[in-house]
């Protein structure tokens, strides 16, 4: 790595950044915005999912909390995710305070608020090494820390009398985030960007440096 000339590194960095951004210019099902917004709003430089199945989240706004009777809460965005309304997935992060920080957390559940005919979503994330890392469900969490219920509602902002709230478990949260990240990634990658098929329309063999690629791994 150190043997590479600096211009080559710059070119490489630009190439890396520009590949998905270029692909986004004419997305199919969902129309993604331009490069600047992709970087600032959708955080394209960070992937959503880590190998240990924690989700990355970038903290936008602390929501307060005492830190004594209930953990601090903050709102954040899950990178490279998009919902039908064109916004990234918003998460409530347990035990987070610092705007701009990138944390990783496990999805415990999905909260919704329907108000004036509009439904909003908040995924509840618990960093595994944070104060709520030992919890596996929202029910368990709210049972032990009842004050959180109020905090979760405040995370939606001002509420009118007609608002209704629902709460779903981890299964639904996993699917919700998975769908939103898939929607973003599928919009980012165009047909022309993919590896081409053979002349007969079939895929071609691919040799990945990290695989064994041994002939005896195939039925040939």
């Amino acid at each position, binding site marked *: *790595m150190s043997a*590479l000339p600096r211009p080559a*590194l710059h*070119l*490489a*960095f*630009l*190439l*890396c950044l*520009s*590949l998905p951004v*270029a*692909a986004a210019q004419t997305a199919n099902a969902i129309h993604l915005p331009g490069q600047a917004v992709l970087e600032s709003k959708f955080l394209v*430089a960070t*992937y*959503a*999912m*880590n*190998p*240990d*199945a*924690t989700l*990355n989240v970038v903290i936008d706004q602390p929501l307060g909390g005492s830190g004594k009777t209930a953990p601090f809460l903050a709102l954040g965005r899950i990178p490279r995710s998009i919902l039908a309304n064109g916004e990234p997935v918003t998460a409530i992060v347990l035990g987070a305070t610092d705007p701009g920080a*990138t944390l*990783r957390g*496990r999805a415990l559940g999905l909260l919704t608020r329907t108000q004036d005919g509009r439904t909003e979503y908040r995924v509840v994330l618990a960093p*595994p090494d944070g104060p709520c890392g030992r919890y596996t469900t929202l029910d368990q969490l709210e049972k032990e820390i009842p004050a959180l219920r109020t905090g979760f509602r405040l995370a939606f902002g001002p509420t009118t009398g007609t608002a209704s709230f629902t709460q779903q478990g981890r*299964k639904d949260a*996993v*699917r919700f985030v*998975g769908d939103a990240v*898939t929607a973003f*990634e*599928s919009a*980012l*990658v165009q*047909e022309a*960007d*993919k*590896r081409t*098929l053979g002349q007969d*329309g*079939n*895929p*071609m*063999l*691919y*040799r*990945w*440096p*990290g*695989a*064994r*690629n*041994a002939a*005896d*791994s*195939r*039925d*040939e």
Partner: protein
Amino acid sequence: MILRQTFHRPALAAVLGLCLIPAQAQPPAAGPTRPSGQAPGPAAGDLDTLYGFPVKPAYLKYYEADLLGRVPISPYLQVASRAFPACLDLALAPYDWVIDAGGNVAVVPETPHPWGHAFPKGYTRPEDRSWHKPGTVDSYGHAGAMGGQPGRIGGELLYEEETRTWAISNKSAHYSRKNPDRTPDQLVNAARLIQQVMDPDGAGWGDVRYLLGYGTPGLKSKLEQDPRLEYQNPAKKAGAYVVLKTGVIQ
């Protein structure tokens, strides 16, 4: 413009990317590798005995790495452990599973892959020349569960409507096929762990099926004599398997 033109030449872009930016071969802001925050489990040697030695994937399908060689992780990934079980979702079945180096179960549903194609007329898979029916869409699988990293035994979780149960098999060409330490005993060990660390979404646990085509040739010859032998396609005697267990494994 140059970048855009380069981008439309996937092979060239891939070569450029791999040659120039090895440091970018990992995802940006890559998170920790597993396991994380898990309760202490069996030692590595015990895990090797229980689930087989971790090996690199046998191969990657053409769409399972992006043009820079990075292996996208499924956004539906769950890594199940006793400390943090996974939640299966009937609506997302089938799933692919792999026991990772730390003895956790990585599990992903077979959802469409952003770098894959749809095949309205079907296609022949180059790895084993198997025919895939019209309408097939390239999906996340075992590579997307592991990010291309070494894994132990792997297979599939199929939800079967008739019995309302999950069937567990060793069907993984990436991590099971032709590895000598992916035996029926190791599949039963993995199935027991899966049952302990996954919420089946209201369904039950069904068959544990050892597919002969995903073992070694020697084991295949031996199991072909097994009285429990069945076929997925009895008429053609194709898809031979042995049911090792049914229901909850003690």
